[in-house]
Structures are given as structure tokens and as C-alpha cells.
């Protein structure tokens, strides 16, 4: 596979971190995409903004820390993080609670991101 800069893959995350393994499996997909130098954008909507909370301590519920894995994504070359601003407001989250440097977007901007993407995967 060769890197393709013409195609943009929009990965839309909407699950809370510990309701099922889907949040973690979505991150695993992003890591694989980064390994193959794909041009990906990550967009957190709905309950997925809860994945971004930086004070998660899930050891006592026998889960691996999703925020810790997300924090590692920039090391693997993923840098395009977007979050649905309205979802942050819904849960009352502020910037300093989040584990990634992330750009807030409006529904209009989200619609444009989807329209401009080559493919989208919803997790």
C-alpha cells in the first residue's frame, strides 16, 4: 500500500469509553491507519467526548484506560482531532479536562467534513 494524500478518511467516534469494546476497537483502527500512513481525521461526537476525559482510572472496573491510548495517537502521526462542540457543552466538559489538543467544530463544519471525506467509518 502506498500513502495516498488524495483520499481523506473521516473516522467518526460516538461511543462512551466503557459501554462496549467499540471505543477501543475504533482507536485500534486509527493506529492501524496511521501505520499505513493514511490521511485520517478523527471526529468525536455524542458520548465519545467522554473518551477524552483525562482523569479516567478504570483499573477497578477491569478496563484499560481509553484516554491513555488516545493520548498516544499523536506519537503515531495522527494529529487531526475534532470534537463536536455541542457534545462538550452537553456534558459540561472544559478544555483542561481533555486528553488531546482538539479543535471544536459546529454542525455546519461537521457536515462539510463529511461531505469532503472520501470515506467515513462510524464507530
Amino acid at each position, binding site marked *: *500500500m502506498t500513502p*495516498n494524500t488524495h*483520499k481523506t*478518511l473521516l473516522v467518526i467516534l460516538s461511543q462512551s469509553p466503557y459501554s*462496549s*469494546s*467499540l471505543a477501543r*476497537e475504533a482507536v*485500534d*483502527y486509527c*493506529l*492501524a*491507519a496511521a*501505520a*499505513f500512513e*493514511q490521511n485520517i481525521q478523527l471526529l468525536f461526537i455524542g458520548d465519545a467526548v467522554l473518551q477524552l476525559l483525562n482523569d479516567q482510572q478504570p483499573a477497578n472496573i477491569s478496563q484499560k484506560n481509553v484516554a491513555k491510548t488516545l493520548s498516544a495517537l499523536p506519537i503515531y502521526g495522527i494529529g487531526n482531532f475534532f470534537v463536536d462542540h455541542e457534545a462538550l457543552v452537553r456534558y459540561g466538559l472544559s478544555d483542561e479536562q481533555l486528553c488531546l489538543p482538539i479543535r471544536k467544530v459546529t454542525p455546519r463544519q461537521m457536515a462539510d467534513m463529511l461531505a469532503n471525506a472520501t*470515506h467515513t*467509518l*462510524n464507530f
Partner: protein
Amino acid sequence: MNYSIVVLGAPFSSPSAITALNFTQALLTQGHTVFRVFFYHEGVHCANQLSTPQQDEINLTNQWQTLKKQHNLDLVVCIAAGVKRGVLDQSEANRHEKPCSNINDAFDLSGLGQLVEATEQSDRVVTFGP
């Protein structure tokens, strides 16, 4: 057109595994090609050949196997998602010292790179949610 299909739902807990099969059959009937069907998340259970539905119920694993025989489909089960849910081929069964394997031989266990490649190579990617 060249399609890839992503299946995230398990038989019996979500209709998505059946919807994905019907959609893939319709695609092929219309002359489209399928680059890959990728089974991820709970969708990996579609490959369990030990699944034994009652006789008047659909056996999804067998249906995918039949479709593969007719159209030479590439059916890939995510290895990480599959092994953790107990969908193993012989080599993984040996590696993890399990008494048996259970993946239907129409399916291949492989890495997430196969899904990355599928999105890269296909004109259309259709996801069937859990």
C-alpha cells in the same frame, strides 16, 4: 463499482449480520465487485463454524461460505477482535494452547491493515452497525 463491507454486529444479537449478507448478495447480482468483507467488533462471531442454529433458522456462517464459493469473496475477520471473542484458526489455537480452532475455513484471520487497505482500495465502503 468496487465495494468493501464492514460487519460490526453478531448473529442473533443484531440484524446487521443478515442485512450485510443480503446487501452483499444484491451487490454481486448487480455486477458490482466486492474487494473485501471485513468482520470487526461483534461481527467476528459470523465466522464461528460451531454456531449451530435450529434447522428453520439461517446459518449465516454457511451462507457466507456459499457466497464465497460462488464469487471468490475475501472474507476477513479481525484477528485481535476475533481471538479475544474465541474465534480462532488452528495456528492461533496452537499459539494460545486452546483445545480446538473454530473458524469456518471460508474466513481468514488477519490484521486491521486489511480494513485500512479495504477503505483505500474500494470505491464504496458500507458499514453495518452493531
